[in-house]
Structure formats: C-alpha cells, structure tokens
C-alpha cells in the first residue's frame, strides 16, 4: 500500500505490500488460470483423440467389411432382379387376356340383324411393353418397370344395311358397354367407313374397321 499524501519514510524504509500479501487468496488466481488452461488443453486433446480414434475405428471397420458389402450390394441387386423375375412369372398367367371369352363377347355384341354383317378380318398383336416394346417415352424401360400387356384389336367387316351408320353406332356402343366383358374395354373407335359402289337397285356395301382398345394388364401377382 502506498501513501500518496504523507511520506515521511526514507526510500529504503518503504515497504510495499503485494496484492497477495494483502489477500493471500489472490495467489490462487494464476494457479487456477494455469489449471484452467491445462484443463482446456487436456479436454481439447481428449476430444481430438476421440475423433482420431473414431476415424481409425471406422476405417478399420470399413476395411473389414468392404468386400462383403460389395458382394452384398451385388446380391441385393440380383435379389431385386430375381424378385421381379418371379413376380413377372407369377403375373404371366393372371395377366393373360381371356381370348375365348373375348371372342364370344365380340360375337355376342353384334346387333340384329346379324346376317347383314360379315367380318373380313380380326387381328391383334399383343404388345409386351418392357419386354417386346419400349416404353411410350421411348426410354429404357427395363429397370424398375413391370412389363405390361397392351392390345388393340382390329375388326374389319362389311355391312349391307340401309343405314349402316346406325348399325355401326349400335355395335360400337354394345362393344363398349356390353355386359360380361371379360376385360375392361377402354375405347372402340371406328377407323374406317367406306361405302362401296353398287348397282342402282341394290343396297350399298359399307366397309368398316373398328379398333378395340383393351385395358392394359401388368405382369404382376
């Protein structure tokens, strides 16, 4: 402690008191600071060591399992292919169109008088989208996509009738909305309608073509 006001002492007689002398507890401050710094450094070092250890463990684990994981990945991909393969096979039977019933259905929908119509061609070529044909987008269809059956049936014929358009309209409606259709019919379009030349006293023959679009069927169980 320094007396700023009255100083009667000779310089050598001056005695300065350190803070620590006035309060010994202050001596602890630098010690505590050092301890705190050391503790901080130690904690930081520990945390770094933990990260290093974790990295080393992960690396070791990866080295240990990498080959097995690669094999397992290949196996998982093959599992997917096998699963799709089995599902395709399981769906093959159920996705078939019932053609005997479909042919009967078409014959049943011909409106009376049936003898006025003659069919000249019935044709379809089933698309097997994903196996036989590319997807509508034209892109690669295989991965992830299930194969699908699609059929557009072409029915050509000739009719000799006073008002062929009425007959064909009825036929179209019956094909589209007839009862007991073995498959959902999406659309029936009259694609061709052509009246052929005839003698004056005879009824005109009319050629027609219907396209019957059936609901696609996915090859899945």
């Amino acid at each position, binding site marked *: 402690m320094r007396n700023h006001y009255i100083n009667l002492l000779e310089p050598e007689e001056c005695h300065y008191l350190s803070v620590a002398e006035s309060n010994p507890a202050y001596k602890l401050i630098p010690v505590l600071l050092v301890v705190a710094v050391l503790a901080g450094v130690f904690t930081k070092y520990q945390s770094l060591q933990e990260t*290093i250890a974790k990295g080393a463990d*992960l690396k070791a684990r990866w080295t240990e399992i990498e080959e097995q994981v690669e094999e*397992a990945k290949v196996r998982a991909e093959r599992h997917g292919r096998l699963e799709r393969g089995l599902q395709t096979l399981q769906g093959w039977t159920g996705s078939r*169109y019932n053609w005997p019933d479909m042919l009967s259905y078409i014959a049943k929908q011909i409106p009376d008088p049936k003898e006025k119509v003659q069919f000249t061609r019935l044709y379809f070529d089933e698309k097997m989208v994903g196996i036989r044909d590319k997807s509508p987008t034209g892109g690669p269809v295989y991965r992830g996509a299930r194969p699908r059956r699609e059929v557009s049936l072409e029915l050509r014929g000739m009719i000799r009738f006073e008002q062929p358009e009425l007959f064909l309209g009825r036929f179209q409606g019956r094909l589209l909305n007839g009862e007991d259709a073995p498959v959902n019919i999406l659309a029936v379009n009259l694609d061709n309608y052509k009246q052929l030349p005839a003698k004056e006293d005879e009824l005109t023959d009319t050629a027609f073509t219907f396209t019957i679009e059936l609901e696609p069927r996915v090859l899945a169980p």
Partner: protein
Amino acid sequence: MKFSEMDKNQKQLLILSVGGVITAFFIVQNLLLKPAKEAALEAQTTIEELESEVNKGDLLLKRDTTLRKEMGNMAAEIQELRAQNLPPETSRYIWALQHISSLARGVGIKADVQETPGVRYMPSNAGKNTNRESVPMWVPYSVNVTMYTSFENLKKFLQELRVAHPFVSVGSVQIEPNDVTPEIHYIRLTLEWPVLRFEEDLEWLKSLHKEAT
C-alpha cells in the same frame, strides 16, 4: 505493482515465468495439439466419407442372410414353375409342337406349328456388355400356329390351351375368311411362353436353389 517497481529477483522470476509459459504453450501447441488437430481433421474427413457407408454396409450385411434365404426360396419357386409349365431349355420347338398338335387334334383341328422367325422381344444391345440386372429375366419363346377351322373350334382350342398351359399367351391372332368354305376360316396365331433370356441364369437359379437346400 509496476514492473519498474519490482526488484531484480522479482523481474527475473516474472520474465522466466512468462517465458516458461510461452515456451510451454508452444511446445504443447506444436508437439501435441497441432499433430493431433491434423490427425483429427483427417479423421473427420474419413468419418464424413465412411460413416454412412459403414452404417449402410452394416445394415446391408445384416440383411444379407435374409436375402440369401429369400433368393434360395425364390429360385426354388421359379425352378418348380419352370419344370412344370415352361418349355425346356433345349428342344423347345419339338416340345411346343407336341403339346399344340395334341391339343389341336383333341378339338379336331389340324394345326401347322412353326417357330416364329426372329425374336419377339427387344434384343440386348449387340456388341455391348449387357448388364444382366437391367433387363428382364424372361422373354417370350414364340411359335406360329396356322389352322383352318371354324370360329367355334378356335374358341374351344384357345380354351383348352388356356387350361392346359397356364403360361401360354396368345401373342397375336389373325382371322380371315376363306372364300371356298365360309364356315372355315384361315387362322394364324402366335403362342408364347416365358423363357429365360440368358442361359447363365439357369445355372444361377440352380446354384441358388442348391444353396437354399
């Protein structure tokens, strides 16, 4: 207390202390913390790169046993279906000929059976290595059947075929009239069965089946 007010001993002690602390700090920093930090940084990069890989890998390995079992079961199921209902790997044509002719005779039809020329599926890219995992396992094996018969007989034949061969598909149908005999039509059918696209798949299925049993 100011530095100038300290005696010599105190000053020396203070300078030594400060110097010691700074030296200790640099020693700790350079010999302990810096290498540890660098190693930790490297480890952190490793962790970021590998942590999810390892986790996914562990999950995958955990599932692997189940996958193996499932694959064995699926292969067994496919093999069973193949053996019962699908054309054999060799001599498919004679197999199809026998089955179809027999069915046709049963409904009083004489059928001409020919292998469909070409293939009715998208071929793998020629000259390129096809990734087997990316293409369907099954492709159709097709035969063309030509016959002259009535509409009713055709329906009977198709019905018999449908029942006797659960895996046969009618790939195409063409019915046209026959001018000579109006009740008898010219009929051309394409019949298809699923067969394995790659021969190697057969061996693969067999090995999976064997592993499972």
